[in-house]
């Protein structure tokens, strides 16, 4: 497995989209932090309150969305240019390929999440400093938000691999996953928050300490997210093992 792990790391490192998505993640971290701060600029808002700090640092959550895309491309992309045949010729026990990708994209998710967290923190720190304030880095509202964003990014990397293993066509998988995460889940949650707070994307908001009502407690949210990922991964491995590679 270690040789396969090294091969996957080499593959990820030498694929340009990995780096483009990482840079985009950092950019989203910056913009996602600036946007709520600009929105309240000049208004009588306590920038040092927990609620406002969590809202500002939510830019760090941007990493989660793009690492989902990276995970999907990492798995489903194998089918796009015929790499999957070579992957399974080297490793005929296909579950090993999915397992190694799961571990690698857990790590990539962590890296993306940290990049977004650093970008968001630096941006917020600069904004606060420009306002003559100091971002209280020792406050739990800061570090719990950042740790939550990094953890969710790591888990979304794995979720991307699972989705890619199930769908195996990158474009529909990416469009479907983004539409579900960005549009469908928020709309359902807005319509009936107590029912749809169990959805995985909404549960991740709780882990990321997003300031919103009706979210699950962090422990339950983590259980929901982990459960969904485990089921999706199991389904993905089963489909990848079972289905023929015909082209």
């Amino acid at each position, binding site marked *: 497995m270690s*040789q*396969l792990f*090294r*091969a*996957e790391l*080499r*593959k990820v490192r*030498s*694929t*340009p*989209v990995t780096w483009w998505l990482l840079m985009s993640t950092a950019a989203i971290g910056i913009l996602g932090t600036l946007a709520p701060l600009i929105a309240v600029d000049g208004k009588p808002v306590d920038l040092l309150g927990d609620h406002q700090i969590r809202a500002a640092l939510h830019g760090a959550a941007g990493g989660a969305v793009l690492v989902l895309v990276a995970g999907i491309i990492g798995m489903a*992309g194998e089918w796009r*240019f*015929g*790499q*999957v*045949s*070579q*992957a*399974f*010729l*080297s*490793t*005929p*026990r296909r579950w090993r390929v999915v397992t190694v990708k799961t571990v690698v994209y857990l790590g990539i998710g962590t890296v993306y999440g940290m990049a977004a967290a650093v970008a968001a923190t630096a941006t917020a720190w600069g904004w606060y400093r420009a306002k003559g304030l100091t971002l209280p880095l020792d406050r739990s509202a800061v570090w719990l938000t950042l740790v939550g964003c990094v953890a969710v990014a790591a888990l979304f990397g794995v979720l991307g691999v699972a989705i890619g293993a199930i769908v195996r066509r990158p474009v529909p998988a990416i469009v479907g996953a983004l539409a579900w995460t960005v549009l469908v889940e928020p709309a359902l949650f807005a319509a009936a928050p107590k029912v749809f707070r169990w959805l995985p994307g909404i549960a991740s908001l709780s882990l990321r300490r997003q300031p919103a009502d009706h979210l699950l407690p962090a422990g339950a949210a983590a259980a929901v997210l982990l459960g969904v990922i485990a089921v999706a991964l199991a389904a993905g491995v089963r489909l990848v093992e079972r289905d*023929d*590679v*015909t*082209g």
Partner: protein
Amino acid sequence: MSSRTGAIECRSLKKVFGDRVAVDDVSFQVPPGTITGFVGANGAGKTTTMRMLLGLVAPSSGTAWVNGRPYRDLEQPRREVGAVVDGPGAHPGHSARTHLSIMALAGGLPRRRVDEVLDLVELTEHAHRRVDGFSMGMLQRLALAGALLGDPGILILDEPVNGLDPPGILWVRDLLRRLAEEGRALLVSSHLLSELAEVAHRVVIIDRGRLIADTTLDDLLAEQSHVVELRCADPAPLVQELRARQVKVVADGDGLLIEGLSARETGEAVAAVGAGPVYWLTERTGSFEDVYFRLAGSMPHPLSDVAVSS
């Protein structure tokens, strides 16, 4: 390159996709040290058979073994089997060297093999170029490099000369000969029998999923026959007459291809049924494709409604 050997065996192999039978009861062997040409029209079942041998497609029934085991049971598959399926399988953003390095890492192969196979397929000077800038011929060479990376005793090559220019085809033929001389077992597919005739020791022909020939090239050549090409004013009564005499005749554009009669016998038949005047009458040795189509039972050219083989 080491002197490796290996063997391939299919037994009663069958694959059904939905309600379509892609491969039906196919059995053959590829012994060590031989090149076996695997010939069939597009869609005949060649690629599916090869993918079953490589563990990429699961057989509906029967066995597809390499070195006495299913591919999925091989501990170090890259060291035992090399394959070209559907091009090199490289990410277009990777260089040739990166692609082969990833394969070497995944296959547990020494990194030096990357340089060795790049040299072997004459791609060293393009090693750092992105694969999306490669010509079709370069992609085929890269695919062959990947197949040879593990220095395997078995090579399963699906249309390896597809897209190559004539010098490239000669180069591949020479490479295949050398690999077989080292004791390896080679299964090489093509939709053109003539493409493999100069290198193959054995020929396996598949048509619509069924095996129709598994023979040596010498035996196959012995089956070549003479074909008469004819263009005349009114072919319909001649076709009827030849059908009655159990002579094989097929349409070829505005003429006929007749097998089993000499030019003189054909001319006499035309005169006897009043099919003349004759515009063209010539006798030629059957080509490899004629042999293939005769064995396959299908026609080299679309049949008209008047020309039906007997």
